[in-house]
């Protein structure tokens, strides 16, 4: 197992620990160096370890006395924020007020009592994590091409649960305030994007090139794909537009290749083109957990420590390895042995090379990592040993 190293500039970071026994968060801890940190870690054995993306004069002091010096730029991509169909199978919610429950992502408010607070059980699954990985790759590309960060300036990591983090420690970004970070978030998500400021003029028929950099090129590419595949969602643009777009596909694409303005098509109105561009923005938008980036005091899980909800570890993903990275294999912390558990209810899942079926009210002997995942999710309990091994 990899050693747990504290982050760079340990002496300026705040650390926090979730304690196994008390289930409480121990915050505002500061350490002078790695040795000091490890000594503490061994003495408390926490379930989860966090550190601040912020640098403080006095990290151990209470919040108002800390003396904020700056913060890393951090992005969190979490399957919770990306709609996937499989959530219907593996995620559940229960209304805290009336106890009503359902499958999939939690509703905005409870249909039964109007309550807005829910207990949620979400499972990491291959589909969700693959979608999160795609978003992470998109984010990485934008950070490189638009924001000019080199690959070695970006630390990519699997969060240990349902997503990925990108962490930038570059000195130039440290003093960005929360508003500035909000602008970066909006940039990534395409929030507030006005097509007329990104090369579109629906009146005169001006449109950006596929080779343009930044949002211009990305919008052109997404619109091109929409036209090419005619994958326009008919429910939002109307069947007629989809049809006429499809019929004129060749002409539009010809214009495109000839570098002419491609948003002039006789039977596709400018309103419809505006709708196509809106869908292009949606396609290129990167689904971030916005608050993680804008919070300049945020606590983040430390790499190579366990995620208390899965028993998997937060794992760094090296430069070019994200495509090959398999969270359900590469992030397994407990590789040996088996544990017998009593499972109340669990969906299908995969760990390593093994796919597990769903279980319901049964006792099973499982590899420790799988048992750990079920235990962490609250879906199982350690089974009493009937025949203890001598």
């Amino acid at each position, binding site marked *: 197992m990899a050693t747990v190293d504290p982050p760079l500039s340990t002496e300026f970071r705040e650390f926090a620990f979730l304690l196994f026994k008390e289930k409480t968060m121990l915050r505002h801890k500061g350490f002078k160096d790695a040795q000091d940190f490890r000594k503490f870690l061994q003495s408390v054995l926490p379930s989860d370890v966090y550190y601040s993306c912020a640098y403080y004069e006095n990290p151990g002091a209470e919040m108002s006395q800390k003396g904020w010096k700056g913060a890393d730029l951090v992005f969190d991509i979490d399957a919770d924020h990306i709609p996937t169909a499989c959530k219907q199978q593996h995620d559940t919610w229960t209304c805290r007020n009336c106890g009503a429950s359902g499958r999939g992502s939690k509703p905005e408010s409870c249909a039964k009592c109007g309550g807005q607070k829910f207990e949620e059980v979400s499972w990491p699954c291959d589909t969700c994590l693959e979608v999160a990985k795609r978003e992470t790759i998109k984010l990485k590309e934008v950070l490189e*091409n*638009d*924001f*000019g*960060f080199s690959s070695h300036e970006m630390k990519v990591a699997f969060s240990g649960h349902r997503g990925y983090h990108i962490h930038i420690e570059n000195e*130039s*970004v440290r003093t*960005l*305030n929360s*508003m*500035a970070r*909000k*602008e*970066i978030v*909006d*940039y990534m998500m*395409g*929030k*507030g*994007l*006005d097509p007329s*400021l*990104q*090369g579109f*003029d629906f009146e*005169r028929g*001006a449109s950006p*090139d596929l080779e343009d*950099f*930044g*949002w*211009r090129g990305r919008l052109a590419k997404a619109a091109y794909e929409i036209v090419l595949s005619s994958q326009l969602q008919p429910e939002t643009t109307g069947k007629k537009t989809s049809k006429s777009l499809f019929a004129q596909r060749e002409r539009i694409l010809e214009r495109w290749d000839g570098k002419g303005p491609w948003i002039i098509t006789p039977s596709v109105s400018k309103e419809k083109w505006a709708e196509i561009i809106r869908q292009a923005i949606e396609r290129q938008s990167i689904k971030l957990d916005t608050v993680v980036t804008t919070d300049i005091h945020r606590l983040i899980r430390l790499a190579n420590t366990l995620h208390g909800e899965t028993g998997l570890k937060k794992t760094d993903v090296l430069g070019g390895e994200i495509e090959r990275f398999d969270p359900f294999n590469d992030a397994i912390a407990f590789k040996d042995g088996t544990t017998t558990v009593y499972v109340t209810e669990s969906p299908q899942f995969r760990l390593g090379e093994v796919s597990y079926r769903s279980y319901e009210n049964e006792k099973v002997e499982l590899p420790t990592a799988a048992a750990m995942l079920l235990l962490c999710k609250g879906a199982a309990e350690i089974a009493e040993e009937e025949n203890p091994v001598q």
Partner: protein
Amino acid sequence: MLLTPTDLAKYPFTPQAAEHVQKLDLRITELDQAEYGAIVERAEQRIQEAIENGVVSDRTTGYSMQRKNTKDDVEILSFPITVVMVVSISDQSLKRRYALAEAKHAYNLLKREDPHKLTAIAHVFNLHPRQVETHVKNPQTTTSEFLLSFVGYLKNISIFHESKWKLVNRRMQHGEVHVTKDEVARLIGEEVRAYIESKLNLKADLALPQDVVNRIEKLKQRHMSLKKMQEEQMPKETVIEAFPPCIKKLRKTALEKGHLSHIERFTLTSFLLNSGMSVDNVIECFRPTSDFSEKMTRYQVEHIAGGRGGGTKYVPPKCDTLSTHGVCPGGDEICEKAWRPLTYYKRKLAAVKPKTTQQ
């Protein structure tokens, strides 16, 4: 790049200008002496212009009886004297108004500068715009003359609310944002405003000669009487005590002749109209603001009231939008249960109305 004495006169807030002042060995206690007459006069004028017009005038160009170097020195030296005078007036709203008036003055000069000089002044504030040659493929594409690191760009734009300033609406490549010369001047202007405001908030206990003290007193009176006039004109039919913290703050800024961004104006206007205030009274609220134009304000207020255009009556933005745009100053207990400023108002109204409704 070397800044000439005229440059220092135009941009007296630069460290180079401060060095120049130090060399001249100006003594605060001797400001009543005849040789400093023109300087003190100009300092007083700078404040007066801020109070009356919201912008400091340009005295570096045009015909003057004074010799060129004397004229430049008056500009350079009058700036620190003005700062001392505003500090001693000790009024927050005047400090903000003066800083903004100097920023506007700087912006007016900067937008006409040649690119090298503009860049040199930008360096003072740690902004490093890089001049570029752009090949314009499409006449509709705005030409950008400079590239600025996104970090430098983001430092000040939260104050601007036009959508063209949003990062997502900019052209950006390899960490650099395309900006026009005018935009570089705006960004520097904002740096100037923040820098001067920070200087004005430093404490200074200086023994000023009586003549200067008298001038300060006169300026203070003028500022206060304008401020009071605005307060008296405030409409009374709405229950101000029931305003949420954001609206209270916006109203205060307007009354104190502060600067309101587009979204702040929209929020305040739509809120006041929805709270039952008449169009005329809402317009009066904006009279003290630094860039007030009655015609323009009437047009905007009537539009928001639904009297013009499509006839849509607008409501203030939701709390989280206000928070995104930095308008929310942080809420109180009622805010936790309200998601719009008007919801807050209605709730609080129910609690305070029996005691304090004003007719």
